């Protein structure tokens, strides 16, 4: 039991504890109640999500994490209204919602910008759909483009932008509708590590400056701890809530905290939950059958 000596992810400093108390006093923006999702497959019914319950408070940053096959993408697609739940309900500010709508913004991993529209037009899309006139929409769009730092690219087309820039446009486009909640499905998954780090800081900056609740799907543990107030950990087959972790790393975050004790403790816990110690029968499958594939007479230097 050498774990006892290491600080636990449950230990919170007074200021962090105080912040979580205040956070939980805020009104609930999103409430998921008894959510189930079944899929019909040729092999019979598969339960993708089983009895999911959680709440996200106003301006909270929730990350959803879990092993592959835990249904985290299905969950966020249900929240966005792109898929329907088999049973259970989803309340936005206390009102039940069904189907997709502009009250929930979504950022996809694959950018999904409209290639035939300029950056400005992409951001204006939702505003025009909501019936705002062209001039007003344009004016608002510029503010959001400015917020994500792409003022110089307002008239560019998506194919002229880098991956990180595209995703910033996608964020601006989702935020322009002023949704209550921003759903993000592994938005930085396709980016290289450096761009990814920048985008994370950028997103934190945006989140601090506007009134938005974020639900963020990721499979990257560091990303989840770095961004989240609380992390919803799912387990696979069927997808169920394993634990809701309050991240003890103080806000505001910056990259220097990646090595702090709270960070490491949280990461240890996530590792435990997501990559549990492998059972004996799994090992034999994963072990490679190693034979030295060189000729006897070859003088091969050792890599060690």
């Amino acid at each position, binding site marked *: 039991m050498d774990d006892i000596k290491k600080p636990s992810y449950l230990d919170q400093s007074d200021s962090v504890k105080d912040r979580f108390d205040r956070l939980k006093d805020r009104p609930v923006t999103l409430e998921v109640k008894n959510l189930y999702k079944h899929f019909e497959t040729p092999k019979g019914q598969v339960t993708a999500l089983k009895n999911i319950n959680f709440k996200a408070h106003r301006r909270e940053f929730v990350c959803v994490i879990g092993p592959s096959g835990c249904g985290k993408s299905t969950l966020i697609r249900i929240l966005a209204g792109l898929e329907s739940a088999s049973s259970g309900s989803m309340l936005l500010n206390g009102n039940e919602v069904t189907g997709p709508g502009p009250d929930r*913004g979504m950022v*996809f991993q694959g950018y999904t910008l409209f290639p035939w529209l300029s950056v400005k037009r992409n951001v204006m899309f939702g505003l025009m759909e909501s019936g705002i006139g062209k001039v007003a929409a344009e004016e608002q769009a510029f503010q959001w483009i400015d917020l994500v730092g792409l003022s110089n690219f307002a008239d560019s087309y*998506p194919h002229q932008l880098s991956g990180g820039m595209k995703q910033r446009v*996608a964020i601006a486009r989702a935020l322009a509708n002023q949704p209550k909640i921003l759903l993000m499905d592994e938005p930085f998954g396709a980016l290289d590590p450096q761009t990814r780090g920048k985008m994370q800081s950028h997103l934190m900056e945006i989140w601090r400056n506007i009134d938005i609740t974020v639900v963020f799907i990721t499979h990257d543990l560091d990303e989840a701890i770095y961004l989240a107030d609380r992390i919803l950990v799912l387990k696979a087959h069927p997808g169920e809530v394993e634990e809701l972790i309050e991240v003890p790393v103080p806000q505001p975050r910056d990259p220097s905290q990646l090595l702090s004790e709270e960070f490491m403790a949280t990461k240890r816990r996530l590792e435990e939950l997501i990559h549990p110690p492998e059972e004996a029968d799994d090992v034999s499958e994963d072990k490679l059958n190693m034979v030295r594939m060189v000729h006897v007479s070859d003088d091969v230097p050792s890599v060690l």
Partner: protein
Amino acid sequence: MSSASLLAVRKKLPPRPRRWVTLLSFALPIIIWCVVSYVPFIWHPMIQIENKGGVSYFQEGMLVERELFETEKQTAIAEGLALPEGARANPIYLPAPHEVVRAFYTSFTTEPQRRSEKWLHESLWSSIQVIFWGFFLSSLFGVPLGILGGTYDFFSRLFEPFIEFFRYLPAPAFGALAVAILGIYQAPKIAIIFIGTFFQQVLVIANTTRKLDASLLEAAQTLGAKNKSLLFKVVVPGVLPDLYRDMRILLGWAWTYLIVAELIGTSSGITWFITQQARYKNFENVFAAIMMIGIIGLAIDMLLAAIGARLFPWQKKEAEV
């Protein structure tokens, strides 16, 4: 340039060799044609009589098969008559390139045999009109139906099974019916082009529409777009570049129906010109007219490709002709 770099698998050729090879694609058939036409000992299965000699039925300028010429020559030797003379020639249906090139000009300036008949440019114009109206009417109905079918499963089920059946019926089979209903002039010809194009068009465009990235529709929905604006602001602009490319290919198909269509009712247009000239054995005019169809088709396609590149600047540059 080593052959290895010329034949690299799925690698683009460097620009200079690329241009040369493109040129070669047209040059090769022309070279073969020239060789067959101008090198007397290659092919040339006929003899053009220059001097009839003692053979009573030979005439100057007449084409006879080489074998026949030889037999007659032997007969003449045996009978001690004057020997016929002639030069090797190709059959009348293979004019030499320079004759066809000349025909490109002369076929336009040759007056029609009869007053009621049309000049070549009038015939060509008539053909282009048939193509235009056939394709225009087909697109007028085919494009909206295709987009609806590709967007809504309801319309897909409503139209496509029947169209799938109908497209196997060969358009020319409707020729007699078209004449009975629409008369003998341009209308039945336009109808044949329409039948030949429309059913393919609906299916091709429905398929193209279905290929639109579904996540664009999902993104639009999360931005508040509903049924009608999904269709007009996402599906339509989203498929437009691919649809445009489909239309270019379909227009090519419409041209292939032209000759059959123009034989229906009173023969007209370029087809009338071709059959008429073949009857007079002016095969250089026939070749010129056939090539004109190809040149007009290719020119229109290249023009449309250039316009497309302007219209859809966000599309990745596709390999143009």
